[in-house]
């Protein structure tokens, strides 16, 4: 296969152990490796780039085993924080750099330096020095330079984390667009869940050297399988509960929580796995979670209950914090409850601190996490 394949990779450096890690990145796919600082993200990236020898395991790049190859024999486009442009050379000289080390000098490169500059819309910068460029221009030069290397894989090591918020937002979208146009495989390391969400087709979650969870970006945000993932990905509402009984129809369950008994509708399991009734047995201890943007405040203007009276509770508004396009509302429903609502809708509906209002927790938005331990358990407390 093409792209990247990581098999049973383990890396050991003094005081830290990474792995074993198994990963695949297909051409045209971006895998975001997300985790807190100290999780081993950069170590993983440097091992793939060839700057760190693994203790065990294999790395395949474009189907070729490169485990023993030095960095200059691996075709990777390595893009780091602040972009590592050569400051003593012009933009064009930077972009030409890889050409001098091509083993197959006969064949014309897939991207000439000039084509790479044009592809990224920065022909006009050719004679500038990196020090005179803006953050966005540097990112484009770094991408152009990597393109001329004809990489089989792009590696990104938090390229945006040194930028301030407005620049980061703009470059994040631009990078996404460029990666889509290129259709190359990429591994993108970040500690920022929003960056992982914007840039990753799939997300792999790394914690203290271990690959905790991996999945399609929508799935891993909506249905994390561990408490660690749920917390790290911003599922603000998480309560311990116990499965009471199937709720009658189909896959619906009733779960007892600190704020009462709620109906939960787990999504269809994937083919080949057990049906919901069998997985979630009555009496089982679980954690129930709901993302704040899925919580519906029924007093909110324009909101009407979807299925009447189901999972409806009363709560009091404790604090409303503006958050840009939405407001984060902290409520007291016996237990703390966090909801995100469109900016200003709450005050338009006449609700403020101290208001009591009905809240709906849609059965389909409630998510179950088993309490059988795993990576999540350690952070529970």
């Amino acid at each position: 296969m093409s792209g990247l394949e990581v098999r049973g990779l383990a890396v050991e450096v003094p005081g830290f152990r990474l792995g074993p890690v198994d990963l695949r990145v297909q051409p045209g796919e971006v895998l975001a490796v997300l985790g807190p600082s100290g999780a081993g993200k950069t170590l993983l990236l440097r091992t793939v780039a060839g700057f760190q020898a693994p203790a065990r395991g294999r790395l395949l790049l474009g189907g070729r085993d490169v485990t023993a190859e030095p960095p200059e024999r691996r075709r990777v486009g390595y893009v780091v924080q602040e972009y590592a442009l050569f400051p003593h050379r012009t933009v064009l000289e930077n972009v030409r750099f890889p050409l001098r080390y091509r083993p197959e000098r006969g064949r014309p490169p897939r991207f000439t330096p000039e084509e790479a500059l044009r592809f990224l819309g920065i022909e006009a910068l050719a004679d500038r020095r990196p020090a005179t460029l803006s953050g966005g221009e540097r990112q484009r030069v770094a991408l152009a330079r990597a393109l001329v290397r004809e990489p089989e894989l792009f590696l990104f090591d938090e390229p945006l984390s040194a930028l301030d918020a407005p620049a980061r937002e703009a470059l994040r979208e631009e990078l996404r667009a460029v990666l889509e146009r290129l259709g190359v495989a990429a591994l993108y390391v970040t500690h920022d869940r929003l960056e992982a969400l914007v840039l990753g087709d799939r997300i792999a979650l790394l914690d203290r050297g271990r690959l905790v969870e991996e999945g399609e970006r929508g799935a891993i945000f909506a249905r994390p399988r561990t408490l660690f993932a749920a917390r790290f990905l911003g599922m603000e509402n998480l309560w311990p509960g116990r499965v009471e009984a199937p709720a009658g129809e189909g896959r619906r369950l009733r779960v007892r929580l600190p704020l009462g008994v709620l109906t939960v509708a787990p999504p269809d399991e994937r083919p080949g796995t057990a049906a919901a009734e069998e997985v979630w047995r009555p009496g089982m201890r679980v954690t129930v979670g709901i993302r704040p943007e899925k919580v519906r405040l029924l007093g909110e203007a324009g909101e009407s209950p979807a299925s009447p009276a189901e999972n409806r509770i009363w709560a009091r508004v404790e604090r409303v914090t503006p958050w840009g396009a939405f407001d984060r509302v902290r409520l007291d429903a016996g237990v703390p409850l966090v909801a995100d609502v469109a900016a200003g809708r709450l005050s338009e509906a006449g609700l403020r601190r101290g208001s009591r209002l009905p809240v709906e927790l849609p059965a389909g938005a409630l998510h179950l996490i088993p309490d059988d331990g795993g990576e999540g358990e350690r952070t529970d407390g």
Partner: protein
Amino acid sequence: MERKSPLFLLFWLLGGLLLLFIALPLLELVLGQQPARLLAVAGMADVRAAVALSLEAAAATALLGAFLGTPLGYLLARRSFPGKRWVEALVDLPLAVPHTVAGIALLFTFGRSGPVGRLAAAAGIQFWGTFLGIVVAMLFVSIPYMVNAARQAVAAVDPQLEMAARSLGAGPGAAFLEVTLPLAWRGIASGVVLTYARAIAEFGAVIVLAYYPETAPVKIYELFLSGGLADSSAAALLLLLVTLGSFVLLRALIGRRAGPQP
């Protein structure tokens, strides 16, 4: 808004005193000269030869030091290896060796009966009382400056730039030559200037290993012993002017303050 507190008034006072302590002797050396005597001494063939010898030997030392010291500075900046702390201590050691002790230790090794001296003698090379001996003495006392300057210059180059070069296809040697060296060269060049200045200043180690041919500091000492302060101070001023002149010229060439930053 920065008020003068009593403590900082004391600081300015002590600092000024120290600057005066440095400047006054040099000013005295300049102002205490009779121009006629200075010209006479500058015309003496042996003084001129001694100054020229000092400049040549210091320049040779600085170049040799750069050639031998830059690689070690690179390794200390970029690699970790067992015993690295001992290597760093060894590099700094010549700074703590009294100058005449260094001269005697070098004589033990490079002298006629020393291990290197005997080997070299078989090849027709002699250190005791030769230009080569002067360079050896100068190199020994100045090498810490060169190695540490190179180490700092390399350490100041972001290692990610080397990694970027490697990932773009350059081997380790090419990454050094294309990226690290061009970015570190100013720092390395300051180290060369520093090494040059330290080499030209040396007296104790040189006088033991090679009293003859006389370098300028030795010649000045000889004049001091024989002719007294008048001739020797004229020669001293001459050497000072030549040394500072070449020092300033080199600093201007590399385009920045090349002073030591211990």
